[in-house]
């Protein structure tokens, strides 16, 4: 049995439709890897007919760093700091996902205090991530001011995280057995101050962009993704929920202390760009709600149950665990062989699985619409490539 392997060159066959002079000719255009829409380095080859997209061929791999190979040669403790560099906007959730898988494999218990801290931090991170996403969406659609407003709010939350964690982007904070450092004495006060501010700012976002008829026309009824397709294409997170499937691991399989809080899962009804947009806006409000319920109830106790310098042995076996990052389900497949280094570690990154639906969504729309579609899919390129 032989299996044919193609190359990109085969894939991009010569444009068709050139036989008659009266027919328009399809052409290929290279969007990226240096295109402003690829927030990172993602190459997308478009087969176009005038301004209309006929085919989308994403070519990722420009930021491929072989994280999984590195993971095989590092202990699980060491590997965690690499996960910051996947989806850098939800670095803490990435840390948490790997820690959670390791804890599950090695049977490590986590104290309540650590769980509270993890949950609050993760929600702050989600808030921060969505604030930036909102700004970037504005920039992609031409409203540059929104970009800087989004960054402004990201900075405010970043300051709080920085006080406790000591880093702004690559946090490496959540580790197997707990968290790396205890909360900063000012953390609770600052967080309480920032939550009403964020609420006010999200209302401002609604005034500046959501209420803007130009933006509404750019998003409404464009790139409609049905719930069935979203599931088939492996979409998770806000993309899936915008299509009406309320699958949120925070609800269905509560981890951390999500079972102790009351929040709603925002879902869309149509699955177009607008639903994806507004699901994230509403998620920000729900995140604030979650933090408000937790911030006063952080119990006292230890933050770490295993000695950091020690070896965490992963028993032989295959473990899969996942959680909800700002962009969807991050799954970790961990294959242990009894040593402290995983035999194989595989990361199911949410962006990798959310990307490919663009090959279906963008076809038939204009070149300006693929920008909007990509923005509402909220892709972070290093997470695709890993």
């Amino acid at each position, binding site marked *: 049995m032989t299996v044919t392997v193609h190359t990109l060159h085969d894939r991009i066959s010569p444009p068709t439709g050139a036989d008659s002079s009266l027919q328009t000719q399809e052409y290929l255009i290279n969007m990226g890897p240096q295109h402003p829409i690829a927030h990172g380095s993602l190459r997308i080859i478009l087969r176009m007919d005038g301004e209309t997209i006929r085919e989308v061929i994403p070519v990722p791999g420009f930021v491929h760093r072989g994280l999984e190979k590195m993971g095989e040669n590092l202990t699980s403790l060491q590997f965690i700091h690499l996960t910051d560099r996947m989806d850098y906007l939800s670095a803490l959730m990435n840390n948490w996902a790997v820690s959670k898988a390791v804890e599950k494999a090695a049977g490590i218990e986590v104290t309540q205090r650590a769980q509270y801290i993890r949950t609050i931090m993760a929600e702050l991170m989600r808030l921060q991530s969505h604030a930036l996403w909102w700004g970037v969406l504005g920039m992609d659609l031409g409203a540059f001011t929104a970009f800087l407003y989004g960054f402004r709010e990201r900075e405010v939350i970043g300051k709080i995280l920085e006080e406790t964690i000591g880093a702004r982007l690559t946090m490496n904070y959540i580790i197997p057995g707990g968290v790396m450092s205890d909360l900063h004495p000012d953390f609770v006060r600052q967080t309480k101050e920032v939550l009403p501010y964020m609420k006010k700012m999200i209302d401002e976002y*609604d005034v500046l962009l959501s209420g803007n*008829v130009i933006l509404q026309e750019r998003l409404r009824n464009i790139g409609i993704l049905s719930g069935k397709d979203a599931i088939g294409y492996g979409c998770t997170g806000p993309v899936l929920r915008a299509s009406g499937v309320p699958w949120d691991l925070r609800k269905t399989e509560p981890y951390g202390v999500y079972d102790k809080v009351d929040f709603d899962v*925002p879902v869309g009804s149509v699955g177009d760009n607008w639903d994806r947009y507004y699901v994230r806006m509403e998620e920000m409000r729900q995140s604030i709600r979650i933090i408000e319920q937790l911030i006063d109830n952080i119990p006292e106790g230890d933050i770490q149950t295993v000695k950091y310098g020690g070896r965490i042995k992963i028993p032989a076996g295959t473990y899969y665990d996942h959680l909800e990052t700002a962009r969807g389900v991050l799954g970790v497949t961990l294959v242990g062989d009894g040593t402290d280094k995983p035999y194989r570690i595989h990361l199911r990154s949410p962006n990798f699985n959310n990307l490919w639906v663009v090959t279906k969504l963008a076809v038939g729309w204009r070149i300006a619409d693929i920008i909007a579609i990509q923005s509402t899919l909220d892709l972070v390129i290093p997470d695709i490539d890993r």
Partner: protein
Amino acid sequence: MGLLDTKDMKKGSGTVGGVAVSTVTVPRLKRHDTARDVGFSLKELGRGMKLTLGYFARPKTVVTSQYPENRDTLKLAERFRASLKLKYDDKGWHNCTGCGICERICPNNSIILTTRKGEVTGKKELDRYVWRMDSCTFCNSCVVACPFDALEMGPEFENAVYDRRLLIYTLNRYAGPAAKVLAKHEPEQHAAMMEPRDRFGGDTPLNGVAMPKVEPLKKANHNNEGDAS
């Protein structure tokens, strides 16, 4: 209000995977085929313009910080991770015993420890604590892992240099035993136990290849006094 009513959220519940989930359905936009809705849209455009003009008119809302000028008032978070330091007590002694846990836990071999046999104590003690900032990711693992609380991360972030070899630091000011051991010995023995080390001295390993000796930047900054920044 306009075409979007942000309060128009339908609370409901959905089921996924056999679990009931309380949901909130995000608002859809109203169609704008009536003249009234066009008016609403224009009003919303006006509200957006009012918002940006509001920020324009209030210079207090500017968030830019003028970085090199505000150096004196710039206050970074005390936990900010920008440079690795050995902790020194008021006598100038560090806590490092040269056990090598930090070296082992470092994910990218940024810490290289050499130890020697102490002449006075006859036990293993720190010779050189080499920290390679050029490959460090500031993951904080070494600080957390250190069982003797000998390391800390500092917020001194202005470390840019023209030659990356200058980013290889020797962190210990002296080769010798930790503060605990020094305290057990008589003060007159200390001088014999401690051999000064400077920041850039000696050969430094770089991917297995010996580095040429790097001259210190300035004579005044020769040793580690105030040079950890």
